[in-house]
């Protein structure tokens, strides 16, 4: 029996992008359903009644919520190709630690850059650069965080690259100037189809962020 996979998503969501990349890496065919977050579908509310958020991965009718959990699930179920987590328990723990770091820091601080102005924005920019410098140190000379191949941490972090232009425009700064290795790493990831086809165009995301900024009355 063929697997039926549905992804409930919202195009600029970095969390949704993680699931898209993981599914693409494994070559899984799935149905993509765009959600209108101001008018959530009955399916979304049924599949994620607790948080009512995207992304939701539905595998043969069963929902899996939370993007890091989805990526691990995809890796465990479709374990015949493109392993995302390493096989060694210690290396796995390190990958989980860094994915947790990205989850705790990047979305929050990135959102503050496009959602605020003045002092609050300056503080957010500073923290953003600090966090990425920590990540740069962890990347070191590796091709990817996963080593020679795209791995779990790469999948978890690279979606934010689609937001870089939005952050730069709203924050009036250059991420490449501050963290060149991260930008080089992101471009390397983007050469993979699983990543480039899963991430929206930076200009489109920037337009979205500016629109939201206007809607929240920040200027």
């Amino acid at each position, binding site marked *: 029996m063929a697997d039926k996979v549905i992804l409930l998503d919202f195009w600029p969501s970095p969390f949704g992008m993680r699931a898209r990349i993981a599914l693409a890496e494994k070559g899984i065919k799935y149905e993509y359903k765009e959600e209108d977050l101001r008018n959530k579908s009955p399916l979304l509310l049924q599949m994620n009644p607790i948080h009512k958020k995207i992304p939701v991965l539905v595998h043969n009718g*069963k929902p899996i919520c939370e993007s890091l959990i989805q990526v691990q699930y995809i890796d*465990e179920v479709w374990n015949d190709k493109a392993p995302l987590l390493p096989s060694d328990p210690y290396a796995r723990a390190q990958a*989980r630690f860094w994915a947790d770091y990205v989850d705790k820091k990047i979305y929050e601080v990135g959102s503050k850059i496009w959602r605020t102005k003045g002092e609050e924005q300056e503080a957010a920019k500073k923290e953003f650069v600090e966090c990425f410098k920590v990540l740069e140190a962890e990347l070191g000379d590796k091709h990817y965080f996963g080593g020679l191949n795209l791995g779990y941490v790469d999948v978890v972090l690279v979606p934010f690259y689609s937001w870089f232009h939005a952050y730069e425009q709203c924050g009036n700064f250059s991420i490449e100037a501050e963290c060149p290795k991260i930008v080089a790493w992101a471009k390397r990831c983007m050469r993979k189809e699983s990543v480039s086809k899963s991430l929206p165009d930076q200009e489109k995301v920037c337009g979205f962020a500016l629109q939201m900024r206007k809607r929240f009355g920040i200027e």
Partner: protein
Amino acid sequence: MAEEVKLFGIRGSPFSHRIEIALKLKGVSYEYIEEDLQNKSPLLLKYNPVHKKIPVLLHNGKPIAESIVILEYIEETWKTNPILPADPYERAIARFWAKFLDDKCMLAAWNACWAKEKEREKAMEEASEGLKTLEGELKDKKFFGGDKVGMVDIVATFIAFWLTAVQEVVGADLLTPEKFPILFKWSEDLVGCPIIKENLPPRDLLTANFRARLESSK
């Protein structure tokens, strides 16, 4: 080769106690090192330079930080008494609840107990919602892990033990047998398990800490 396992923790921290419970459940011998958060040891700063927090597990000289990351590592390294299901879907569900507990319940319950007068009602409501959701998930199971204590139960120990201690001190009635009969029974069953009971901090240590905190906030 002998295994060397060390745990850097704080007596009274629900996060370091999670790790102790998991190690004991799996019969892993370890050396416990008490940290002083006001005066962190050079070793702690060396082994967790990013967050500088406890718990940190050291296995044969290699450090692992973040309690849930540590629990998953323990599960994968020592196979006795599994704390996660074997089925990937069931495992995803367990991970979801562990995250829900840490991200939502813990903070909400803590805030509800310590909230100032005018914020208390809203905080209590939010915390109650979290407990209601947990009760809904527990349903007719003895533990979140089924018949046996699993990772979700281990993570939820702060509700079974820490919350009841805080409640007593601040006079909040968040988790009561009347409001949440299923969850309340689960908390008694959990704390009654020998492995859990033997590895909890003394209740009066907790209540003393909380009383001191209450006094200083006045």
